[in-house]
């Protein structure tokens, strides 16, 4: 195995010979992190708030999100009427908008987290295998990736969820099947370059198996890009979920979702602006906070990803 360096040279190892793997786990520029600190903290706080609202929905919601009081149809928000029973107004069936918004957060957060975790695991596993194995495995996967990426992601998600039918698991499955490719590409690239590093060679020299090298030596070193990508992808996933629910293809009409509320409220925009405004606002704020968080993480952990 002494032919290691010679083997690495034709592969075009990046011209950063002294970059130790450990260095990538520490923030690349501490000043960058400090500068971003405040924005990151604010974004993280908002995101955690949404997670808390989703988890504690039954405790926080003032009423049952499905309870209809038909005479209260289109009742304006509490601060306009002076009556506190519907703080954000009532919808076209007299249901409390705030309660529906709170329960709607559950779907957005659950889909966001579950999809991102599942597609990160699936995508990075496949990417790492392809990147480490190279050869035919890599070629086949690349072909699959290219085919997969030829479909616009949202169109693919629409087709998949229409085929799978409504429901939370089906929705997550549809989004995972569209979302895994980006992880796969990034991780494959990372592993391709890392596998030629000295520490990998060293591990190989002492007789570590391929699986062990991938799991113990390569994966920890690609955690930073995965984390950054996952955070950024979460924003996309939340938007996709809202879009699918808006189109009536999400979890189904019987569960309150922000996208569904937005679509239902859209037709009453002139009579009752609060039906579409608040879910729209909720989507915007959540997605903005996740995006800011992702940006800060990227700047702090992996500035190289900025160019991707």
């Amino acid at each position, binding site marked *: 195995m002494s032919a290691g360096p010679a083997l690495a040279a034709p592969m075009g190892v990046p011209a950063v010979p002294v970059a130790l793997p450990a260095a990538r786990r520490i923030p690349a520029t501490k000043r960058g992190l400090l500068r971003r600190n405040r924005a990151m903290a604010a974004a993280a706080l908002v995101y955690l708030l949404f997670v808390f609202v989703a988890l504690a929905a039954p405790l926080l919601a003032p009423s049952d999100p499905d*309870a209809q009081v038909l005479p209260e149809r289109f009742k304006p928000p509490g601060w306009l009427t002076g009556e506190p029973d519907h703080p954000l107004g009532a919808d076209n*069936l007299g249901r409390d908008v705030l309660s529906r918004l709170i329960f709607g957060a559950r779907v957005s957060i659950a889909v966001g987290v579950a999809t991102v975790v599942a597609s990160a695991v699936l995508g990075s596993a496949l990417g790492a295998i392809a990147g480490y194995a190279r050869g035919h495995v890599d070629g086949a996967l690349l072909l699959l990736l290219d085919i997969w990426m030829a479909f616009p992601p949202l169109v693919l998600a629409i087709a998949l969820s229409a085929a799978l039918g409504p429901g939370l698991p089906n929705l997550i499955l549809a989004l995972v099947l569209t979302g895994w490719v980006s992880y796969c590409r990034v991780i494959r690239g990372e592993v391709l370059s890392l596998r030629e590093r000295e520490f990998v060679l060293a591990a190989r020299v002492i007789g570590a198996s391929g699986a062990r090298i991938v799991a113990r030596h390569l994966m920890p070193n690609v955690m930073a890009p995965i984390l950054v990508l996952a955070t950024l992808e979460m924003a996309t996933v939340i938007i996709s979920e809202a879009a699918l629910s808006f189109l009536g293809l999400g979890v189904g*009409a*019987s569960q309150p979702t922000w996208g569904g509320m937005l679509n*239902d409220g859209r037709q009453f925009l002139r009579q009752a602006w609060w039906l579409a405004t608040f879910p729209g606002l909720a989507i915007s704020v959540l997605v903005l906070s996740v995006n800011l968080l992702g940006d800060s993480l990227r700047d702090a952990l992996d500035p190289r990803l900025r160019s991707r």
Partner: protein
Amino acid sequence: MDTRNIDLHSSPRSGGTEWRRLSRRDLLRATGGLVATVTLGACTQTPAAQAPATAAPKPTDAPKPVAPTTAPAAVAAPTAVSAAPTAAPAAPKPAAGPPARSQLIVAQTADMVTLDPPMYRARQTQNIHQMIYDTLVHRTDDLKLQGRLAESWEVVDDKTFRFKMRANAQWQDGKPVTARDVKFSYDRTLDPALKAPRAGLLDMVSSTEAVDDSTVVIRTVQPDPLTLVFLNYHAITPMDAVKAQGESFFQKPIGAGPFTFEEWRKGERVVLKANLSYWDGPPGVETLIFRPIADSSALLAELESGGIDIAAEVPPSSLSQIKGNPNLQALTAPSTTVHYIGLNNRTKPLDNVLVRRALNQAIDKNAIISSVMAGLAVPVPGPLFPEARGYDPSVTGYAFNVAQAKALLKEAGVENGFSLTLDTTAPNKELSEAIAGQLKQIGVNLSVNVMELGVLTTKINQGQSDMYHNVWGDSAADGGVTFYRHFSGAQRATFKDTWYSRPELDTQIDQARFTFDFEKRRQLLVAIQKTIVEDAPWIFLWQPTSLAAARSNVKGFVPRADGYMFLNKVTKA
């Protein structure tokens, strides 16, 4: 989008950038090196040069390049000078026709399906067709039968109708309409090879006969007074032209109706022009345009800005908005439709009549009507609306009573309620959700499943929907039609629906259907309705009141109970 844009779009040049690019490229080929100086402005000044260039890629646009091109300019700058040259060729007989350049734009919720009369069953398409084609008979705005191409008719016996043709009716190419055209049109519809969706409406017809040029005889298999009513849906097409041109006739058809077909841009607009030689006098406007606008907020925005003159179907929730706008008029009419929820008689626990009655009792129809439907509906106690033959006012149906509904569920052994899926379509989603919300009170949890109408219809036909919110329209307003279609076991071969079947009822239904005397028929239908209400294969809901809206300068537009529109007498002030 405002009015001026509409005018521009109605011109054949509205292909937009694509059209311009194409024609400019062709112009380039034709004129060689001159292109360097061609600008957009230059294009508009050389319509004559463009006309042959456009003819090749878009043949339908070719015949009318000059006049309409200048028309929008005249509208945009309404000076006497620019209007003069346009008016001259367009109105050769100014005394007879509608006001020059008058146009009526009508929005419907769906686009035309086809131009071939027997090949569809959709009200929106029928509304367009009956302006192009004429029919033998017609129903007036209060749904009384009246002759159209037929001047008169007589009932020879219970199974034979004899029609006398109108002498002054002619095709839009000037040839007279004869009895042979009528026979040809019906025979074509009934031809099994054509597989026409409209054939079902004529299934009682055994033979058609053109006795001479002005006499048609139609015979039915069984005594069936409704065949006469159904004839008002069947357009008459010119036999010689259809035979000569085949299917291509229906690309640019001619009819005997008040308007001639001009252009159909799929998904965008259907343009019709006044037929000045229509037997019933020329129509009230020169151009009639139908536009499909499915989205209700877009529909109202267009109506408020004057982009459209008539919106044929408007959701009830916009009633207050229309009433509050001095430029708009809200027009209502009772409809010939009922909303219902089909209950699959094979699904547990809906197979128990007590459960079906409980569901009927658990819905507060008046609360839903007054809130969600803005009062624009009438609750019905059974499957018929009040205007239908066979409706019995003494049958009161199921009164709203949650306690009784719960007691019935207990008696049926499902006191803890149950969970099912309620299939519905997007337009009825809100109502279905309101119904599901009310059924929760008796422990019945329904998850509302919004489906495409076509998909839902297939699922219903196969008897695979457990509960479905649907709308049934019977424009013949005769209980016999409703009962035969939905509650006769004879229909279960094709329409599984609720699987409801009761052999002795089938006999009664057939007996009523084939009774020619209307009073006797009514009595038979009343008896059938009683049984159906007791068996409750549906949750009987309401008869919606149809709401249309028009600009206030539109005169003579009457919404009809059957949902059809006859627009040839409509004018614009």
